[in-house]
C-alpha cells in the first residue's frame, strides 16, 4: 500500500527540517547578535568621538577623553611582529613535517607542535611574566649602546613591552599557521613535485614548486595566524606593560585593544567609558571577521583548484583497445 504524497510522513520531515534548521539559524543569529549588540552599546562613544576616536592618542578616563590610537597601534605592532617571527618558523615546520621527516617521527613531532596550541592563554601569560620577561629584560639590558640609539631599541630595559608581547604571540601562533600550512601542502598533488624533479630540481626547488602551487592556502594560513594574534588577550596583557602610549620601540610598554578591554572593563564607572571600550571591541570583532573570512577563502581555494584540474586533465577514458 503506497502512501499518498501529502502523508503525515512528509509533515514530520518538514518539521524535522524546520526544527534542525532553527538551531542552525541560531548560529547565524549569534554572530549577527554579537555585531548588533556591540554596535548598539558603542553608539554613545561613536556619537561623541566619531572617527577621531581612532586618531587620538590620549586615553583619559577621568576627564572623559577617549582616544584609541595607542590600542590599535599596539595590536597591529604586536601582531605583525608576531607574524614576522612565527611565519618562517611555522612554514619551516610545515615543510619539514609534510615533505622531509621520515614517516616514523612525523606523527610524534606533529603531536608535539600541536601541543603548543593546547596550552591555555593564561598559562602562557603566567610563564610570560615570570620566565619570558626576565629573559627579555636581560636581552634588553645587554643591548649594545650603538643599537640603543635607534628608536626601535630605545627606552629603559623593563622586560615588559612590545618585544615580550611579540615573542609570546609568535609562540602561540606557530602551531595554528603550521598545521594549516601542512594541510595545504598535503593537498598539493605529488605530480607537481615530480615534474620539478624530472627537470632536474633539487629538493628545495621541488618544495618551492609545491609551495608555489599552494601559495594561496599558505597565505590563508599566515592570515589565520594574524587573526589569532590580533584577538589574543590574556598572554598579551600580562607581558605588554599596559601603558597606553604609541611608541616605535620594542622595549616600550604599550597596550593592545584586547588588553585594555580586559583590564578596564570592570572599572568602567560611567556609560561613556564602557561605550568606548565596547567600540574597541566592535572594531576588534570586525577586523577578525574580515581576516578569518579572507583566510578561509584562500585556504579552500587550493583544494578546489586541485579538483578542477583533475577534472580537466582526464576527459572520459577510452576503452582499452583489444587486438
Amino acid at each position, binding site marked *: 500500500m503506497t502512501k499518498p504524497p501529502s502523508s503525515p510522513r512528509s509533515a514530520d520531515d518538514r518539521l524535522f527540517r524546520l526544527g534542525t534548521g532553527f538551531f542552525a539559524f541560531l548560529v547565524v543569529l549569534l554572530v549577527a547578535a554579537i555585531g548588533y549588540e556591540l554596535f548598539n552599546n558603542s553608539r554613545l562613544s561613536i556619537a561623541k568621538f566619531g572617527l577621531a576616536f581612532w586618531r587620538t592618542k590620549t586615553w583619559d578616563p577621568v576627564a572623559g577623553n577617549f582616544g584609541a590610537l595607542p590600542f590599535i597601534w599596539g595590536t597591529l605592532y604586536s601582531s605583525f611582529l608576531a607574524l614576522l617571527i612565527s611565519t618562517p618558523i611555522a612554514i619551516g615546520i610545515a615543510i619539514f613535517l609534510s615533505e622531509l621527516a621520515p614517516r616514523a617521527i612525523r606523527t610524534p613531532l606533529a603531536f608535539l607542535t600541536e601541543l603548543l596550541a593546547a596550552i591555555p592563554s593564561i598559562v602562557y601569560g603566567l610563564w610570560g611574566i615570570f620566565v619570558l620577561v626576565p629573559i627579555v629584560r636581560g636581552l634588553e639590558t645587554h643591548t649594545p649602546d650603538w643599537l640603543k640609539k635607534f628608536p626601535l631599541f630605545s627606552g629603559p630595559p623593563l622586560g615588559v613591552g612590545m618585544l615580550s608581547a611579540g615573542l609570546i604571540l609568535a609562540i602561540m601562533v606557530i602551531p595554528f599557521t603550521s598545521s594549516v600550512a601542512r594541510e595545504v601542502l598535503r593537498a598539493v598533488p605529488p605530480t*607537481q613535485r615530480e615534474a620539478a624533479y624530472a*627537470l*632536474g630540481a633539487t629538493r628545495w626547488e621541488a618544495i618551492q614548486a609545491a609551495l608555489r602551487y599552494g601559495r594561496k592556502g599558505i597565505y590563508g594560513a599566515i592570515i589565520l595566524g594574524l587573526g589569532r594574534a590580533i584577538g589574543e588577550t590574556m598572554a598579551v596583557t600580562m607581558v605588554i606593560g599596559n601603558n597606553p602610549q604609541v611608541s616605535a620601540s620594542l622595549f616600550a610598554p604599550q597596550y593592545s585593544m584586547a588588553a585594555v578591554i580586559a583590564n578596564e572593563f570592570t572599572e568602567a564607572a560611567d556609560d561613556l567609558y564602557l561605550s568606548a571600550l565596547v567600540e574597541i571591541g566592535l572594531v576588534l570583532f570586525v577586523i577578525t571577521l574580515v581576516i578569518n573570512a579572507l583566510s578561509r577563502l584562500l585556504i579552500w581555494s587550493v583544494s578546489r583548484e586541485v579538483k578542477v584540474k583533475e577534472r580537466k586533465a582526464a576527459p572520459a577514458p577510452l576503452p582499452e583497445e583489444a587486438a
Partner: protein
Amino acid sequence: MTVTEPGSPSIPMTTVPEVSSPPPPRPAGPFPAGLKTRMETRRLSFFYGKNQALHGISLAIPEKSVTALIGPSGCGKSTYLRCLNRMNDIIPNTRVEGEVLLDGHDIYGPGTDVVDLRRRVGMVFQRSNPFPKSIFENVAYGLKINGLCRHSELPERVEKALRASALWDEVKERMHTSALGLSGGQQQRLCIARALAVEPEVLLMDEPASALDPIATQKIEELIYDLKRDYTIAIVTHNMQQAARVSEYTAFFMLGRLVEHDRTEKIFTNPGQKITEDYITGRFG
C-alpha cells in the same frame, strides 16, 4: 630457457644476450650492426621494501629511436622507466640492484649528479602536470633552475622547444597566459616542450597519451615520430597499436620480468614467445 603455457604459475623467461660495454652491436639481437646504445640496464632489480618489482632486467635502448615498453598493468614497466632517471629515489624504502648505464656510466654509481642526470634524461608523465604559471614560465622553468642560458636567451630557447613539440603556433599569441587554460592535449605537449627545453639526450614517456582523446593522441604520436630523429625515446604504453605505430623496438614486460625484446615488427607479427603472442592478441591483460 623454459617455455610454459600462459596461466601456469611459473613465468617463461627469455634473457636477451648480455651486451659487453661499451655498446657494440649484439650478435643475435634485434639491433643492426653499428647501432649505438644510449641507455642500458644490466640485471636491474628493484624492490619496494620487501617486494621485488623488477627481476634482473637487461635491456638496451638504442639512440635516436623509439623503444616501446608494453605489458599488462602492474608488470613493472613504469617502475622500470622511472629507474632510468632515478625518479624512484624520491619514494622511501626502495632498493636497486644491478646497473643502469647512460653512455656507459652507471647512474646509480657513486659520484653521479642526480640533478644533472635528470636534465639529461627527461620525463613526460601520464597526466600532464604544468606548473600554475604562464606557458612561457613553464617551458623556461628547467632552463632557469639549471642555469642553462642567459636571461636574454630564454625567449629563443622557449620558442625552439615549443616548435619542437608542435605547440608554438597554437600558443605564440598567448605566451604569458596561464598554462592551465590550455586543453588536455595542449598541456601534455607543453609538458613535452618543458622537458625538451633543457635539451635532454634521452626522453622517457610514461603513457603520455593515455589521458587524451583520439585527436590529441594522434598529435602526440606524430610528435614522437618527429622527435626520434634527434632524441632517444623510451615510451611506456598499454596501447599496442600505438606501440606498433611509433616504435622501432618493443620490450614486453610481465610480472617484473622482461619476456621478450625485439624489433617492433617482429614482436607484433611473429613473436618468439607464446605468452607475448597471447598478450598481443588480447587473450589476457
